């Protein structure tokens, strides 16, 4: 009776091993596995709206992972693999798009927006500085006027 729960736990754990092993990908060289992981996280599932190949369960992602594995074993370079896939599935599948005519705006806009922001910050800063100077001037004017008033008051006494 007492032994029941450890046995149950062991069975559950054994099940995770069995189900987990189903997805193991075999490579002839472990360095390929690292590149494989990078590629499938950087490439996008064409069927899904926003999932990479690593996360997606769709049949097409499964096929494309297999295709990438096959190409890695054929000693193709990362850029060759990416080219192979973009020439079929278009640049849609690259989560990090190449820099070209259609993506200048995409890559350039953060820089442009940053520059605009800096420009605005600079101008605001300058204006504030000018205001501090002018308010400093009025302060001096006020003080001299106050002194004058106080003086005239004392005279009247």
């Amino acid at each position, binding site marked *: 009776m007492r032994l029941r729960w450890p046995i149950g736990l062991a069975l559950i754990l054994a099940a995770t091993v069995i189900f987990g092993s189903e997805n193991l990908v075999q490579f002839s060289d472990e360095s390929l596995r690292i590149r494989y992981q990078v590629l499938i996280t950087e490439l996008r599932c064409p*069927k899904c*709206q926003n999932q990479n190949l690593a996360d997606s369960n769709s*049949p*097409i992602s499964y*096929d494309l992972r297999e*295709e990438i594995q096959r190409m890695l074993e054929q000693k193709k370079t990362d850029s060759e693999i990416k080219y192979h896939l*973009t*020439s*079929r599935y*278009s640049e849609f599948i690259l989560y990090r798009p190449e820099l070209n005519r259609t993506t200048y705006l995409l890559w350039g806009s953060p820089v442009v927006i940053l520059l605009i922001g800096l420009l605005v910050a600079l101008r605001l800063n300058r204006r504030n500085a000018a205001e501090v100077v002018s308010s400093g001037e009025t302060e001096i004017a006020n003080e001299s006027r106050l002194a004058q008033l106080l003086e005239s008051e004392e005279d009247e006494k």
Partner: protein
Amino acid sequence: MNRVALFLPLALFAVLTVVLLLGLDKDPTELPSALVGEPFPTFSLPSLSDATQILDEQDLFGEVVLVNVWATWCFACRIEHAMVNQLAEQGVKVVGLNYKDNREAAIDWLKERGDPYTFSIFDEQGRLGIDLGVYGAPETYLLDATGTIRHRRVGVVDDRVWNSEFRDLYAQLMDEKR
């Protein structure tokens, strides 16, 4: 100068509104076609009806042909099938690409619903599908007589799609062939 600068945020807002409004009309599930204007990929695959008969890209050349990607597991293909039958009746040469399917089920399917295909390529592993950039059935490709892909449609081809995307191009390609 200052007056004009005051309207700058409004102008920016107007531009952004127009850009975003245009974006609303786009279908985000539709991928740009990488293969339009390219030759049909090479392949060597068995015919659906006869496993011993090996087909290749040469079998598609020489005539204007519609390549229709279909499968028995694909629900939208059932809806599309009547239209494909109708096109075949009108004399359009349609070749089937049976994609990641079961041979017996596919043969039964054609017996039941009619076979509009001159022949069907049996792509059990989906390798030709990958070479074509297929990401979901049904898909339809229009090839000219030289075997160049001239148009691609992802999703169901119905009357509306045929008339707006295929009909004129098909007629033009038929003229080019003559």
